[in-house]
């Protein structure tokens, strides 16, 4: 199970990016519009916009490797989730609502620093998702900048 501390973080995080790799070990980055915990507490459902599809499904179906970084801006609290692809599907209404809430959460954080003029570009940046990718979380790493970055949080290091 994903630890409770991280489950609570999922509700504070406001920006994310995903990574895959192809059969030649070439890495690829993918924009992320939203995320939510799977019903079993062990998977994450990551919501991606249409523009994030390049290399995504072919890489996942080739080798299943998936990594996602989630950050709470502006605190910079950051974790990376690594795991294995389970399935994908088109987004549903609940996914869209999740992504809309996350976009507004990110926007509220950005406006504190950059003012209302940032609203339109930030809303556009947080593109509406079209695809939901579910993956089984095997490992979670601390990525908050500082000396603790890189430590494995889950499963706990011996």
């Amino acid at each position, binding site marked *: 199970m994903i630890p409770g501390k991280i489950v609570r973080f999922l509700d504070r995080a406001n920006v994310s990016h995903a*990574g895959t790799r192809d059969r030649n070990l070439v890495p690829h980055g993918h924009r992320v519009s939203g995320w939510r915990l799977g019903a079993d507490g062990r998977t994450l459902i990551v919501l991606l916009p249409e523009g994030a599809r390049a290399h995504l499904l072919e890489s996942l179906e080739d080798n299943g490797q998936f*990594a996602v970084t989630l950050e709470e801006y502006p605190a910079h609290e950051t974790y990376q989730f690594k795991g294995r692809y389970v399935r994908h599907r088109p987004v549903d209404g609940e996914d869209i609502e999740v992504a809309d809430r996350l976009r507004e959460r990110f926007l509220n954080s950005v406006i504190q620093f950059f003012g209302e003029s940032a609203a339109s570009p930030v809303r556009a940046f947080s593109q509406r998702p079209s695809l939901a990718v579910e993956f089984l979380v095997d490992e979670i790493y601390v990525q908050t900048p500082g000396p603790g970055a890189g430590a494995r949080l889950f499963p706990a290091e011996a």
Partner: protein
Amino acid sequence: MAVRLPEEIRPVMDNGIPAVMVTCSAAGVPNTTVISQVYYVDETHVALSFQFFNKTIRNVRENPRANVTLQDIPGFTLWILDLEFDHSETEGPVFDAMDMQIEAIASATGMSGIFKLRAADVYRVLAVEQQRYEQTPGR
């Protein structure tokens, strides 16, 4: 073979918005991380800051390929770079310029004393893609 960086990407490298980097270990596990600095070295090379000895650094020593996404949020554009690690510099003009920039970024983001440049990792640019996205007014 390296490709040339377009001139219009240079201001995006200096816009202060963090970039995202994806690498992959020799065992085939991808790693994604936020990076604070992408430095223009010349038309076919960029440098990334090596601040902590972390998974990203280990990965590019095992497997030199990397993917970096630069975000031009006011310009409604992403720039996606496919890179290959070339060499690391711990002194010289590129290192000095990046060191000065990293101090400024640390100060501006409340990270003074946490960010410290260990090396400037220089990468060859293998591909550049510009991705514009819709402004979607009214959302």
